[in-house]
């Protein structure tokens, strides 16, 4: 190994994970769906789209990637209908978020606050100035940076280094403490005269540059992959992980079952009355907090298999806060009047290969 690959003392990393970003290679996509409005897309990456009246977008995992760099996937934003004019309150961005207890080693709020280097691959339909925003939540502080796309619709590698925030604060808990934003388009409510480096956040000045390109203003595709945030003042090669490692990290925030076979099994439990069957899911990793349960919203997608009979559910499965925590989710399945109390029952998908149950504890 060349000596130039060795990191200087004090710029090391903790427990082997150099990259603070989870799923930066966009390999894990448990939802595996097209997102058209605010919400999570590929794991750990969120899209926000607010107040637009014309803009139509579609966000998916894609196979377009910067060839020769070891990536198989990217996050794709397709702008299929443009916004003819950006109103003051319209905003479009990607973000990924960092749990406070995972970033204590940044030493923010002390004289030892660590510099950070962000690197990523991007392919934008517009050449010119783009924004990246580093944001702390408690108290709200930000550091607005820019990168320039030289050639439209061409993969380019970008690096940005910022100083540590000696006046910052990162709570040592499971809350979102740092956000990393890619502002894509925004009205005058979100840009003005930003401060330089870290400083108190003012929404009307500090979220994005007023002279950045407007990605909502025309149709085209924006791609992102190879996102890495690391301690130090230099970008290192992307830290590729095996799929299972990245999946386990993602499952702390989102875990999805089913969606692949017609009678997928979700839980095995007990019928406690003629109406209800309770089942427990042992979560594959400890989640960030007691999870929300996400379903298709269609009761007939779900059934309880009891005493050799498939009973279609009369409502979608519910989470019972009693008996649920970061490690276990207690689900209630209802099929009115169909169960014998004391019998075992399995919550299953009801002849639907698209039915699923997801457990959500996003930041």
């Amino acid at each position, binding site marked *: 190994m060349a000596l130039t690959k060795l990191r200087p003392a004090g710029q090391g990393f903790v427990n082997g994970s150099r990259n603070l970003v989870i799923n930066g290679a966009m390999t894990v996509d448990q939802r595996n769906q097209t997102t058209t*409005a*605010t*919400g999570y897309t590929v794991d750990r990456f969120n899209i*926000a789209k*607010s*107040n637009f009246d014309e803009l139509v977008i579609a966000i998916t995992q894609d196979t377009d990637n910067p060839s020769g760099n070891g990536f198989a996937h990217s996050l794709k934003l397709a702008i299929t209908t443009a916004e003819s004019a950006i109103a003051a309150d319209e*905003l479009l*961005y990607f973000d990924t978020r960092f749990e406070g207890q995972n970033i204590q080693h940044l030493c923010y709020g002390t004289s030892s606050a660590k510099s950070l280097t962000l690197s990523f691959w991007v392919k934008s339909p517009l050449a010119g100035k783009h924004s990246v925003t580093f944001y702390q939540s408690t108290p709200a502080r930000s550091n607005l940076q820019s990168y320039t796309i030289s050639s439209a619709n061409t993969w380019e590698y970008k690096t940005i280094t910022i100083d540590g925030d000696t006046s910052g604060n990162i709570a040592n808990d*499971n809350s979102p403490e740092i956000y990393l*934003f890619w502002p894509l388009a*925004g009205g005058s409510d*979100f840009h003005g005269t930003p401060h330089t480096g870290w400083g108190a956040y003012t*929404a009307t000045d500090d*979220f994005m540059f007023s002279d950045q390109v407007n990605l909502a203003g025309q149709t085209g595709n924006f791609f992102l992959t190879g996102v890495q945030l690391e301690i130090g003042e230099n970008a290192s090669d992307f830290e590729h992980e095996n799929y299972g490692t990245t999946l386990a990290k993602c499952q702390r925030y989102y875990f999805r079952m089913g969606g692949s076979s017609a009678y997928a099994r979700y839980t095995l439990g007990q019928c*406690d*009355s003629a*109406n*209800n069957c*309770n089942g427990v899911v042992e979560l594959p990793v400890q989640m960030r*907090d*007691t*999870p*929300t*349960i*996400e*379903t*298709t*919203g269609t009761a007939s997608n779900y059934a309880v298999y009891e005493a050799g009979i498939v009973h279609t559910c009369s409502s*979608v*499965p*519910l*989470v*019972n*806060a*009693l008996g*649920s*925590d970061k490690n276990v989710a207690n689900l*209630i399945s209802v099929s009115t009047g169909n169960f014998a109390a004391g019998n075992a029952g399995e919550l299953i998908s009801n002849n639907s290969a698209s039915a699923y149950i997801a457990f*959500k*504890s*996003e*930041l």
Partner: protein
Amino acid sequence: MFTPATITNAKYGLDPITGENTCINCVFDGSHVSVPLAAGNTEYAEILRQVAAGTLTIKDAD
């Protein structure tokens, strides 16, 4: 830049044994969810915020 979640059809769900409220079922930013009444849950915090702001009402369970 944080816009409020769009929450509709919010309704309590009951624990079958105690008969007490144990979750809130709703459509949250387009997703059909069942939110536990658990401090620290992101969706529950947003529901409480919107209820306190007077912009969301939760229906009683059946």
